[in-house]
């Protein structure tokens, strides 16, 4: 009997395997890498699913930039890779998949503007899918600078269909003046709890969010840092905070007696060939860090009224500051706001809410 079963199994398996069909042509249409020859880029390009931002030096000639792309195997791109184009305004590339069934349009833009110093959170818009809000700053020339990123993209994957106001990072009308930033720790539901990510912390940071690997390596998904051309002195602004009631660990289990708290910090660090950005694992510990400004434990107070924060940058003693590197755009800054201080480890209270408004970054004058 057993032998009959085995023979049958083997023959069935053989029969099924023999009818495995020829592999389909690739249906994906991705830009995998993007490079620009020469030294016009301040940082490696930020490649999103349908958007690429090239941070370009202020003296670069935008009229003749010829980005080179590599694509999903078999896919084609128009205009072709290596074509010089005028990037005074964004350019659009269409990638067509190997099977010709799918097309994706990428917006490729150059950002030459310097880092803004005031953040009022008055400028926001819906993302391309109209699911959640993105914040941007306006430069002197009036163009949009997408300085800020957050984890909404990941939350969108897990809990799509929510109203934009229900995302962890959103906007509120109740600002100190006008609108303000609203961060709220959310539950990620069943899917999140399966993968030991029961909560999504409301957060906003300078840098890029790489949603690709966010489920597997969440700490690596937050790519902190944007080029800075001055030395920061102080981070000031206003906040309101209310902690959620039930504190849970990464398994979603209640931790009795634990209370959630928020976090505000800024990090100045040096980039080089090997280090383009910091991530969740080393943002406060990397040897490349030059200065850290982090809100003091005693200043993290729950409040229904706006409270001012004033956080000095503490420069690492003995860490030399190289003004030539500053001029060469080698220094990066990130500013991070988070509604749950241990949110990067998926611990916190659902409902913890942090409002932020009128943030100002001051320049260090006593060099």
């Amino acid at each position: 009997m057993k032998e009959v079963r085995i023979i049958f199994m083997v023959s069935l398996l053989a029969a099924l395997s023999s009818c495995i069909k020829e592999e389909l042509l690739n249906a994906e249409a991705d830009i995998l890498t993007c490079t620009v020859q020469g030294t016009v880029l301040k940082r490696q390009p930020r490649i999103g699913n349908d958007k690429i931002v090239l941070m370009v030096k202020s003296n670069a000639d935008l009229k003749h930039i010829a980005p080179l792309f590599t694509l999903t195997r078999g896919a084609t791109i128009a205009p072709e890779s290596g074509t010089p184009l005028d990037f005074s305004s964004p350019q659009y590339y269409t990638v067509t998949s190997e099977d010709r069934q799918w097309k994706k349009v990428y917006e490729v833009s150059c950002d030459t503007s310097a880092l803004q110093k005031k953040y009022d959170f008055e400028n926001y818009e819906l993302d391309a899918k109209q699911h959640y809000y993105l914040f941007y700053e306006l430069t002197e020339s009036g163009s949009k600078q997408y300085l800020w990123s957050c984890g909404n993209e990941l939350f969108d994957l897990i809990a799509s269909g929510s109203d934009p106001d229900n995302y962890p990072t959103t906007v509120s009308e109740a600002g100190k003046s006008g609108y303000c930033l609203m961060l709220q720790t959310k539950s990620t539901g069943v899917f999140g709890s399966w993968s030991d990510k029961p909560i999504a912390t409301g957060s906003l940071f300078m840098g890029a969010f790489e949603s690709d690997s966010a489920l597997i390596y969440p700490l690596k998904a937050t790519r902190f840092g944007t080029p800075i051309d001055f030395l920061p002195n102080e981070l000031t602004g206003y906040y309101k905070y209310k902690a959620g009631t039930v504190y849970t660990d990464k398994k979603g289990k209640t931790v009795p007696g634990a209370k959630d708290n928020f976090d505000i910090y800024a990090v100045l660090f040096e980039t080089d060939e090997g280090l383009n950005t910091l991530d969740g694992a080393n943002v406060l510990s990397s040897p490349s860090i030059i200065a850290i400004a982090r809100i003091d434990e005693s200043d993290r107070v729950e409040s229904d009224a706006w409270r001012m924060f004033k956080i000095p940058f503490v420069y690492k003693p003995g860490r030399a500051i190289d003004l030539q590197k500053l001029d060469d755009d080698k220094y990066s800054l990130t500013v991070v706001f988070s509604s749950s201080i241990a949110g990067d480890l998926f611990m916190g209270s659902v409902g913890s809410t942090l409002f932020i408004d009128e943030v100002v970054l001051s320049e260090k004058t006593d060099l």
Partner: protein
Amino acid sequence: MRRNTARYGALLLFLASFISVKAQEDRSAEVVRSSLIGLEYRVKAGFNVGGTAPLPLPAEIRSIEHYDPRLMFAIEGDVTKWLNSRLGVITGLRFESKGMKTDAKVKGYLMEMVSKQEGALKGVWTGSVQTQSRSDYLTVPLLATWKYNKRLQLELGGYYSLLIDGNFSGTAYDGYLRKGDPTGEKVLVSEAAYDFSDDLRNNHFGLQMGAEWRAFTHLNIYGDFTWGVNNIFKDDFKSISFAMYPIYLTLGFAYLF
């Protein structure tokens, strides 16, 4: 287990008593009387080996890494009405389980991971998929039978199955999902579970073909091949882009009264 297990127990009890009573009577007066008017009774017990598979295999399935038929039983009591010395009609009642466990590598496989109440992560999956299924059915076969010779009897017909309890679940692992369609956002996933048990169809029809070899006076060896003609999932189920059909072989022994 989404249905009433009591229903199950009652059924097993019924089948067990049917079989034991029949066995004890052994050529009792009733059986002799029945055989005079062309009726013949038998009980069958065997293993179900096979798979629930799309046919033909879609190009999305790149390889089958592992296949395990698991231990699935079929118990049946049936009656044959002989119309003449060679031709007859068979019907009966069969309690059976059909299931399997597979591990496959897929590319561009449309699927939905996650529970209903919390919204879904739906898209195109490239990576590995492990599936386990087990469905318990109450089946009524209706077959024409033909005696080839004194020892070999062939059967052909159809069946109706009622799903009593069903499970169809698994994990998608080591791969990535493109949200929505192949141009959607890419998410690497180490492991995510899915469960389509509640989407299984209740009423099934299929074709059945069988052969029975009379080894001894009362003991036969048999093999029944069954092929479901409707998708194991409900018509409104869209999370898997292709229909899947149960295709099984039952091998076992039959006792003829």
